[in-house]
Each structure stands twice: as structure tokens, then as C-alpha cells.
């Protein structure tokens, strides 16, 4: 494709091409296999009917997921995140070139684009440098002696903390590989007195650091090239075990946002039928779900375990990047209660992977000694999430509002409260008193219904009247 093929530089040999095809096929195939397993895990959740116009869903996806609208509630992390995000999107154009070069044995296959290629390479280099600087800032925010508060908390155990740093390290390694490749390539061409297509503002500053030996430079160029693509394939397969999976899941998760007012909680249909039948004996209760043998399936009220939640709640769990914005605005958490919305979401993901064969190469739970020990065969409620956490929620929707990818921890909390109340009758005593007050008095307090209209006694309103004066 390119016109200037440096004489000293042999394109990837057939061996390299075959090796590349094998590695790429293996990496992509393994990733597809992991994604299939995660999909199966998500579909373990109960059905949830999604309404609402598709145009509104696409709009939300463009604004919130693609456009990162909700990130900009906090400007500093928004800008830092934006650099890495844009870097990821743009630098991946170069990955297309790497794939083409790898498969066809070409070198810089996109260089035929001329000036466009110059701009692309220069942009990549500048973004790459910005990404490294940003990653340093992000690492500092997490690892300094007093880290940003939302990066701490009971749920931020060994694995989530390590995971967050691993992602940052990998990003630096990928960028370093890119610069190694470009700088070595550039210097090779300079030694030969040949122009390298593309413009490399950062690498041209680094050439002095590289050896003058063409053989060594050639090896460095190959090492950079292979490290970059192997790193990307390895990272791709790390994603399903990591919070970094959000770079993919954010999009479907935002697409499937509930489009109703945040205050509107779901109604339990099976209860609607029961209540209607109680009020009207002639009401025909529709047949419920049946199992393979045609026997009715006894459905649990609310959620005891992760698979009692809806698939949407499980999709939420796989979309969480553990940023902690939810927890940092939770009034219960702020005032020192156990509840942390992020923990609810992380527990859900851990539990669904613990209950069903973990689809992942890495088994994150193994790094969380404490979690595994505590819920060997427990359910989500009590095994991981305690009633004390659930009862501390004020249902204020601050966590829902805060989530940059529209995760709804409140929905899961209410499902688990429903289980505690309707299946275990395990509400706190004072709430049981409130329930019986509503049943008996039609009010949550112990007032007599006959006093309900007393407020209107002796009520006067001031009225201005025009009076004739002499």
C-alpha cells in the first residue's frame, strides 16, 4: 500500500503473519466466549418488560454513554476521564492499521492517506502522551495517602483496588509500546535517510534515547508492535473480570435505562392479580408461569438472591465501574450508615458469578478472601447484603441521579426489601407497626380514622372587604 518501503526493513515475515493470525483469533475468540457466558449470567435474571420509544433510548445512549453527559457534574474527573476516553477511541484507529499490517504483512498500511495519515499519527502521539500524564494523575488520586474519598469504603477490598491500578498500568504499557514502536521506526528511517510516512511530534523528541544500531532498532520496533497488539488482546480478555468492562457495557446499560420518572417504582403484577381477586371474587387470575412439566412455578416475592433480580439489575451490575459517585452522594453513607449503593451493585455481580460458573479466566472472588468465606453458599440477601444496609435507604434517588452510566441501585434495594417483608416478615418492628396502622387506620400513624377531618374545624380566612366611607 505504501510507496516508501524501507530497504533495511523486512515486513513481518510469513511466520509473524501466521503467529499474528493465531494470536488474534485466539484473543478475539476467547473474548467472545467470555461475553457469551456473561450474557447467560445476565439472562439468569427475571424478565422485565422495557417500554418507551427507541428514539429516546438512542438519544440517551448518545448523550449519557457516548457523550458522557453525567460525568460533567464533577469537572476535574470528567476532564481526566475524557482524555483517556478520547485517547482510547482515536488510538484504536491505529489498531486497525496494526491488524491490517499483521494479517497482510504490510507496514503502516494506512500511510497511503498522506496528509490525513500525518494528522492521525500526530494526534495519536499527542493523545498518547496526554493519556500517560492523565493516568499518572488518576493513579495519584487513588493511591496517595489520603485518596479521593469515594475510592475508599468497605467494598473497596483487595481485588477492586488492585483492578483499578492494573487498568492504569496496562494503559501506560500500551502507550509505552506505541511510542517504542514509533520512535524505533522513526530512527531506523532517519539512519537510512528515508522519510517515514506520518508525523510523530513526541517520538521525534525521543529518538535521541534510542540506540544508533539498525538491528537493535528493528527489534525494538517489533517489540513495540507486538507488545501493543498482544497487550490489547490480553486487556480485551481481562475486561470481563474487571470493572473496566464498563467501556462496553455502559452503552447497552444506558440504552436500557428506565424511561419513567425516577420516583415511579415497579408494581408487582402477581400481587396485583391477588389484590384484584380479593376485591372482586369474579376476577380471573391469569395462569402464572409453568415449568417444563407444566407445573406452576412458585415465584418468590422480591429478591433473595441475585437471580431473583431482573436482568436489568444484573446488566447494571456488569456495567459498574466502581467509581463510587453513588455512594458519595448517598445520605445514609454520608452520615456513617453501612449502606453503600456501590456495594449493593458489586455484591450482585460477585454473587451471580459465585452462584453460576464464573465465566471468567480470572476469578475475582479468589482475590477477595473475606467475601468468599462469608458467603460460601449464601444468597445475596444476608450472604452479602445485610438487612441493616437495606433498611438504611431513604429511596432518595441520589445514587440513581449520580451514576454516569444510569445504574439504578435503588431498584435492587427495593426488590430485596420486598423479599424481607413479603417472604420473611422481617421488617424492623417499627415498620411493622406502621404497616398495621395503615391497615387498621388508613394512616401510617396510630390515629383514629374518624379524626381525619378534624383539621378543618374552626378554620377562618381573612377577607378584605371594600366598605363605603363617609
Amino acid at each position: 500500500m505504501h510507496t516508501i518501503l524501507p530497504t533495511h526493513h523486512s515486513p513481518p515475515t510469513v511466520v509473524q503473519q501466521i503467529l499474528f493470525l493465531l494470536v488474534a483469533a485466539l484473543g478475539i475468540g476467547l473474548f467472545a466466549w467470555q461475553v457469551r457466558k456473561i450474557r447467560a449470567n445476565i439472562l439468569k435474571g427475571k424478565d422485565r418488560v422495557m417500554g418507551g420509544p427507541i428514539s429516546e433510548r438512542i438519544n440517551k445512549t448518545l448523550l449519557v454513554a457516548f457523550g458522557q453527559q453525567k460525568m460533567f457534574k464533577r469537572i476535574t474527573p470528567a476532564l481526566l476521564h475524557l482524555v483517556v476516553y478520547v485517547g482510547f477511541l482515536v488510538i484504536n484507529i491505529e489498531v486497525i492499521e496494526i491488524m491490517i499490517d499483521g494479517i497482510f504483512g504490510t507496514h503502516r498500511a494506512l500511510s497511503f492517506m498522506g496528509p490525513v495519515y500525518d494528522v492521525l499519527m500526530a494526534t495519536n502521539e499527542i493523545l498518547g502522551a496526554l493519556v500517560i500524564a492523565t493516568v499518572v494523575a488518576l493513579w495519584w488520586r487513588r493511591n496517595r495517602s489520603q485518596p479521593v474519598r469515594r475510592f475508599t469504603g468497605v467494598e473497596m477490598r483487595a481485588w477492586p483496588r488492585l483492578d483499578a491500578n492494573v487498568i492504569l498500568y496496562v494503559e501506560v504499557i500500551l502507550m509505552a509500546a506505541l511510542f517504542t514502536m514509533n520512535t524505533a521506526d522513526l530512527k531506523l528511517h532517519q539512519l537510512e535517510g528515508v522519510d517515514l510516512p506520518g508525523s510523530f511530534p513526541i517520538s521525534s523528541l525521543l529518538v535521541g534515547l534510542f540506540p544508533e544500531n539498525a538491528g537493535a532498532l528493528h527489534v525494538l520496533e517489533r517489540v513495540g508492535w507486538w507488545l501493543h497488539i498482544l497487550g490489547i488482546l490480553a486487556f480485551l480478555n481481562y475486561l470481563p473480570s474487571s470493572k473496566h468492562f464498563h467501556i462496553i457495557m455502559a452503552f447497552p446499560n444506558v440504552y436500557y435505562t428506565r424511561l419513567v420518572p425516577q420516583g415511579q417504582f415497579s408494581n408487582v403484577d402477581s400481587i396485583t392479580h391477588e389484590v384484584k381477586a380479593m376485591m372482586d371474587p369474579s376476577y380471573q387470575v391469569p395462569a402464572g408461569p409453568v415449568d417444563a412439566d407444566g407445573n406452576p412455578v412458585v415465584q418468590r416475592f422480591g429478591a433473595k438472591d441475585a437471580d431473583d433480580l431482573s436482568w436489568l439489575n444484573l446488566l447494571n451490575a456488569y456495567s459498574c465501574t466502581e467509581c463510587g459517585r453513588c455512594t458519595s452522594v448517598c445520605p445514609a453513607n454520608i452520615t456513617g450508615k453501612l449502606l453503600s449503593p456501590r456495594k449493593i451493585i458489586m455484591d450482585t455481580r460477585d454473587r451471580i458469578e459465585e452462584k453460576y460458573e464464573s465465566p471468567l479466566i480470572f476469578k475475582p472472588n479468589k482475590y477477595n478472601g473475606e467475601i468468599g468465606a462469608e458467603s460460601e453458599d449464601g444468597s445475596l440477601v444476608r450472604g452479602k447484603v445485610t438487612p441493616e444496609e437495606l433498611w438504611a435507604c431513604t429511596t432518595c434517588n441520589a445514587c440513581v441521579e449520580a451514576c454516569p452510566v444510569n445504574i439504578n441501585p435503588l431498584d435492587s434495594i427495593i426488590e430485596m426489601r420486598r423479599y424481607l417483608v413479603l417472604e420473611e416478615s422481617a421488617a424492623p418492628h417499627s415498620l411493622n407497626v406502621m404497616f398495621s396502622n395503615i391497615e387498621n387506620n388508613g394512616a401510617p400513624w396510630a390515629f383514629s380514622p374518624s379524626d381525619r377531618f378534624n383539621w378543618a374545624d374552626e378554620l377562618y380566612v381573612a377577607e378584605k372587604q371594600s366598605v363605603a366611607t363617609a
Partner: protein
Amino acid sequence: MAEQVAKRQVNVPLMADLAARGEQPEVLFWVGCAGAFDDRYKRVTRAFVRILEHVGVKYAVLGMEESCTGDPAKRAGNEFLFQMQAMQNITTLDGYGIKTIVTACPHCFNTIKNEYPALGGNYEVIHHSTFLQQLINDGRVKVQGGESFKGRRITFHDSCYLGRANDIYEAPREVLAALDADLVEMKRSKANGLCCGAGGAQMWKEPEPGKKDINIERTEEALATLDGNAAALENLYGVESGNEGATPSKGNGNGIIAVGCPFCMTMMSDGVKNKERESSVQVFDLAELVASAEGLNA
């Protein structure tokens, strides 16, 4: 001609009586349990009725036929009790052919507006902040002739079930703006507002163990905002989430924490008492402020 103030006794119209006469109200005023039973919020109910009487809206209340919407039961997970209450109320409302409902409680508002339709109850539901805003915009309420709030420092505490739950942020602020007061915003306001601590059935239970009660955190923020006490505010936001023991300085005259929800009213009032600031800061509902400004109290 001169003006003279007289007081007139109000006979609050019952829906049953209107129906017996074959009449329909323009709006049904849904009083809510707090509005009917809580001594503090009864004053809000009465203030709102004075406004309704003053502007001559044809309204009615259900009186003893009203029952809890089921909101606290639903938020606490008792879906069965919620639906029983909802069905009962829908039967009552539909029996009278009610089309439009106004209520001073964001919880009743949210439940009837958003959760009754799936159970067969479809009504136009208006929160009293929106209703008052419309009356002011239409010139039916002039917000003058009574107590002057000009220059008084007022901060509005967003109720979760009005704000985030239903995206109503501007109506209460426009009502307050009409008072010509000095409206100051808390840092955590509108979509980022901090809960008073009562939602999700917390109103009826003791909080879980923690470092601080939520209403204290919120009251400290409101007081520091009214005081213009930057040091206390800094203390409150010193770390990214929450802190301990911010104590706003006393003084700076009588501030007002305005609310639009009976539970916020209880929580913020308790917080002001806890901080021993009752002498300098009062908690009022929007309807009370409007009724006072209009000179309707008798």
C-alpha cells in the same frame, strides 16, 4: 372606599356533599395523612385551604373517605399493602369521577401520579408548588397585603419525591421568588439535593447506627447557607462526602428554610431545634408563606 379585613369561617367542602348535589369540583384537594393528622402540617393544610378559598377555586376534599396512598408501605417493601391501599383509593376516586387532584405532599403526589395508573387510576395530579406557581402567574394570588418577606433570607430544601423523583425544581423557587425575598441556594440543591432523611419509610423508624442523623447534616447545610457561614460550609464539604460537627455561627437575623413536603418539614424542624436555632430560623411550607404574604391568616 376603604378596605376592611373581616374573617370568614370556612366550611371545607366534602366530596360526598358535592356528589350528592350532582356537582364536580375543579380540583380534589388530597390532604394526605400528615396534612390531616400531624399538628405542624395541619397548619399547612389550613393555609392551603385559605388560598383555595381566597381565589375561589371550586375544590373538595374526601374527608374521612381518604386513606393512606400506600407510599410508605411500598417504599418499605410491602407491595401487598400498597396495592390494597391503592385499589381502595382508586375505587373512591373513580366513584366520584375525579379528574384532577392537587396535594401538598410529594409522596402522595408521586404515588398517585406515577404508580396508580398501572393499577387503573388515571388522574391529572398537581403538586401544590406547581398549583401555587400557576395562581401567582395568573395573577389570582398577588402575594401582597400580608406579611412582607422582602429581603428575608430563604433557602429552599428540595424534597426528593418532588425533585429527583419528578423533576420539579422551578415551581417552588418561582413561588418563593414572588415573595421578593433573598433566595439563597444550598450547594446540594435541585438534582443534587440532599435528602432530609425521612423518605423510604425512614419517617417511621429509628435510623440505623451511624455517625450522624441525616436531618442534622442537611439542617447544618441549610443553616450555614442562611448564615452565609463559609467556614461551616467548608467544614461540611471539606471532604468529598459528608463530615462531622459543622456548627454554623449564630445570628444574621431570621432566616427561613422553605419546604414543600410534610416529612421534610418534620426533619428540618427537628434539626433546627437540635441546633437550638428556633429563635432565628423558621421552617415554613410554601403554602404558609403564600397565605401569610397574601394576608389570609385569620
